[in-house]
């Protein structure tokens, strides 16, 4: 099985949310459903510099959709089998004809990927644009990014090119679900487990 995944360049990302909007347009999503969400993690403190104190602040963005995890938290809890990991590309997809809308997957996912659609009565989520991928195209979010801060490819390729980092604050430890992502950290990125910052845009995610 080829496991596809996302590359997220947090050193380039300006938090413009073009990826989120391109996805929303392509997938025709309601206002309260976002397959891709941009988390702004920010914080700061003061550093002694001789006789003065200098502000030491940080703020950076992480564009997170579904990480199509190697061990997804959403799949084992699903009672209907609607939430499944595709054997051909490793993408985690919800079968919207089977889903009963019990929201168990949303409770379990530590990335907020499964998104409940109240109008449709079932779960929806990022499917990695698998139909585009099958045609040799990239997901629509990746192609929309004006900063070229996103990429999508087989994980082997991404890891060879960009390394193995799959966790920075405020993401959970990668050991929980084995997310299929590679992150290039912002120069101000805080390590996973950090609690010195806060989510600066809670109403946007």
């Amino acid at each position, binding site marked *: 099985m080829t496991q596809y995944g996302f590359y997220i360049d947090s050193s380039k990302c300006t938090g413009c949310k073009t990826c989120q909007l391109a996805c929303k347009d392509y997938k025709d999503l309601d206002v309260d459903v976002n397959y891709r*969400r941009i*988390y702004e*993690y920010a914080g700061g403190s003061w550093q002694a510099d001789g006789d003065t104190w200098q502000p030491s602040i940080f703020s950076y963005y992480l564009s*997170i959709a579904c990480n199509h995890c190697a061990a997804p*938290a959403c799949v*084992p*809890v*699903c*009672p*209907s*089998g*609607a939430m499944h990991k595709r054997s051909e590309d490793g993408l985690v997809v919800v079968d919207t004809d*089977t*889903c*009963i*809308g*019990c*929201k*168990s997957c949303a*409770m*379990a*996912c*530590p*990335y*907020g990927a499964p998104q*409940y*659609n*109240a109008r*449709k*009565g*079932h*779960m929806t989520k990022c499917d990695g644009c698998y139909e585009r991928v099958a045609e040799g195209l990239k997901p629509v979010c990746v192609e929309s990014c004006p900063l070229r801060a996103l990429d999508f490819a087989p994980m082997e390729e991404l890891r060879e090119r960009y390394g193995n980092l799959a966790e920075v*604050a*405020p*993401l*959970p*430890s990668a050991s*929980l*679900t084995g997310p299929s992502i590679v992150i290039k950290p912002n120069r101000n990125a*805080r390590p*996973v*487990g*950090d*609690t010195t*910052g*806060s*989510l600066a845009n*809670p109403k946007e*995610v």
Partner: protein
Amino acid sequence: MGWHEFPLVIFTVLAQCAVGAFILLGALMLTGRLEGASLRRLNRPMLIIWILMGVAFAASTLHLGSPLRAPNALLRLGSSWLSNEIFLGSLFFALGGLFWLLTLLDKVSPLLRKVLLSIAMLLGVAFMYATIHVYMIPTVPTWNTPFTPLGFFLTSVMGGALLAQLLLSLSGQGQRLLAQLLPWLGALAIVVALGTSVAHAMSLAGIQSAIQSAVDLVPHYQSLLIIRLALLATVLALWLFALRSMRHQPLVLCASFVLLLAAEMLGRNLFYNLHMTAGL
């Protein structure tokens, strides 16, 4: 505090009380000291158990976005704890209900009925076990603690003992040994619930992700907890008072049970509001 999971609050609390009462009264029936007329007299008010189960399951479907697809919840039986919970709960409901009906109609041999009763009791235990596992999600640090099984178990013991007491009282069998032991069991469970609720509240201080702290999830958590504990203390007071006043015993026990449901539903709602993941 939101009430968005209220259908699940009703489902879990009512089912736990019903299973607890069924197992306690089932134990009494299995000991064989309940025969003929006295058995049927106790069996009749046990209909309340099945009404509670019916309301519980009806409420559970309200939790679903697509209630008409509810049967799909069984598709991952054996793999998903939610599938297991629904399956075991339905089977408990069906076999326990069948036992109740056969006893009511005095059909099939008492031995066969006892076998059915034993199976239903075991299914009740398995049902409760599955419910616990539904919420022991490794990525949800506020639920994946020993306080979850403990809290669910205590609801079963408190609610089950009080409901069993009420049903014994309704059938005029308040003098039985079990009826005299139930208040002790209930009192013990309520005292344990008081202690563990406080310990649980304190344990929340240690649970946080980069962007969420468990202590910030529910505004006025302590006040709401104190209301629940005060309700439980009132439940116990009414319960003990009911046993002393023979005249209105079922009525007072009924009031006590309603207050217990209120206390446990408040507590369960606090539980659902404490949901957070280890990440975003």
